[in-house]
């Protein structure tokens, strides 16, 4: 048993770590989506968090906890600064602006000396244990779960449905949007910090457009109507490359195809409570119909 487990862990620990990190990223974009914000800046926030934490770990003797704290605080500050002007935009315009922000961050990181330029940072101490990820993921889930049922969560939902109506109802729309944006950045940054301390190396290419799209895909694939959707989506999409190893060259094509099929046929993602409820209702209706 133990031997089997050691072998399994040696091979698949990176996959399991990856699932945890991806779950946090999917949750970070779920949070902004739940407030009706289509923000594609989360990959950039992940990068900022990763670089902040990695630089602290490599250049100072500070404990890992402080590095992780930096990976949460630094993106939060950046999000606060850019959020105030950017969040005046909505819909597609916000998506494009946040995409632009991500690209600007990538190019800045690419051209700075202290970030290692195009080579990135190498030799980041391996400090992330599986329980770090599990603990932070659980804490994130707990906070987001509580948030959903709180006044803040209801405000998010009202803004998502119709922000003008929400404003007329007395919801402070700008403030709540900023809160969602900053909290999303914190979660993404933490994921980045954790990720950097087990991949050993990070580079500017790890946090580019493709990654922003990957994060969005995980959340949309899983469904964004509750917390289970992003978890499920990120788990399945993290496992997919492992499952489809046999397809070799055309693996990504299959990925793209799955994305299209989900959007076309499961518009609310694979985990949509409303669909399951409807289905149940139909089931009970048909059985009770037979009895009568």
């Amino acid at each position, binding site marked *: 048993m133990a031997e089997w487990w050691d072998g399994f862990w040696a091979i698949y620990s990176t996959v399991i770590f990856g699932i945890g990190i991806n779950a946090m990223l999917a949750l970070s974009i779920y949070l902004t989506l739940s407030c009706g914000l*289509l923000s594609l800046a989360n990959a950039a926030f992940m990068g900022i968090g990763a670089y902040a934490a990695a630089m602290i770990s490599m250049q100072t003797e500070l404990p890992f906890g402080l590095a992780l704290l930096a990976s949460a605080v630094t993106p939060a500050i950046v999000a606060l600064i850019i959020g105030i*002007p*950017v969040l*005046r*935009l909505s*819909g*597609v*315009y916000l*998506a*494009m*602006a946040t*995409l*632009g*922000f991500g*690209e*600007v961050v990538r*190019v*800045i990181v*690419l*051209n700075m000396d202290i970030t290692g330029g195009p080579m990135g940072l190498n030799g980041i101490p391996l400090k992330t244990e599986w329980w770090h990820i599990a603990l932070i993921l659980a804490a994130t889930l707990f906070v987001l779960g509580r948030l959903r049922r709180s006044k803040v969560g209801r405000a998010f939902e009202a803004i998502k449905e119709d922000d*003008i*109506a929400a*404003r*007329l109802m007395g919801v402070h729309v700008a403030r709540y949007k900023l809160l969602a944006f900053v909290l999303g950045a914190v979660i993404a940054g933490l994921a980045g910090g954790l990720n950097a301390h087990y991949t050993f190396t990070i580079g500017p290419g790890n946090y580019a*457009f*493709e990654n922003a*799209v990957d994060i*969005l*895909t995980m959340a*949309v694939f899983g469904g964004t109507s509750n917390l289970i959707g992003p978890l499920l989506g990120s788990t399945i999409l993290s496992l997919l490359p492992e499952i489809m190893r046999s397809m070799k*060259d*055309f*693996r*990504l*094509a299959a*990925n*793209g*195809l*799955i*994305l*299209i099929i989900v*959007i*076309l046929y499961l*518009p609310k993602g694979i985990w949509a409570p409303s669909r399951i409820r409807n289905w149940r209702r139909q089931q009970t209706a048909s059985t009770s119909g037979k009895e009568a």
Partner: protein
Amino acid sequence: MFEQQLINALSLGSVYALFALGFTLVFGVLGVINLSHGAIFMLGSYIALLLVQQFQMSLWLAMLAAMLICGLIGIIVDFLVLRPLRKRNAPHLSPMIATIGVAIMLTNIAQGIFGAENKRFPFGTIPEDSFSLGNLHLTAVQLAIILISFALMMVLLVLMRRTQLGRALRAIAESPKAAYLLGINVEGLFFLTSFAAAALGGAAGVLVGLSFNAISPFMGQPMLHKGIAVIILGGMGDIRGAMIGGLFLGLAEVMSVAYLSSDFRDAIAFGLLFLILLVRPSGMFGKISERKA
């Protein structure tokens, strides 16, 4: 050599404009951000290469054929992906993500078929002539790029402004439902728009493939980024705006490389985009239209 830089900027900018034209056309008429436009641009380049290599077609004939094939691919994408979403009245996020899926698929398929490495047009197929005017140099390819881009842009502009077809398209852009009630064949024109947009994207692909003489499966992504920047600069769905935005971006990039540093060349597009969005979200030439309670 300011004048020389201007010429370089003109040729780079007109390709950007040509690419962004198809992008903005789809947004204007269909109301969709088609993120597979970059992949179609890349396919255009490969198709032209294939036709030149395998069938010994002349370059310009191959370009025409590539535009046609890209247009057909555009129609297929519209029919299989965008039309079902239109019918369902899906939120604007859906076509965006679905076309990302299309882009991933097309890029990966191209990589599987042609390999990940850069491909070149066979030696001798690209005209090597160049024209000199005093100190200025203009290669035949640059000249062709500028002429073809501007010709295509003019055709599109005249089509949109002066013909019955253009009027119908503008009516659809205003309101598909009203246009339908007025007896306009909305579905047909959606297909036509997708065709034209993809054909323009394919043409841009061939021209870029010629000017850098390097074709790779991954050339679509950076171009897509530039296209996004251009249509935001010019105002989304605005055809004239896309043309001017494209030229402006070309100018900004060439000048920044020439007089500042080449390091931040790729940041220029998005830096501009970012600024424009903050100051004027409707683009440089757009009208502000805000939904009011």
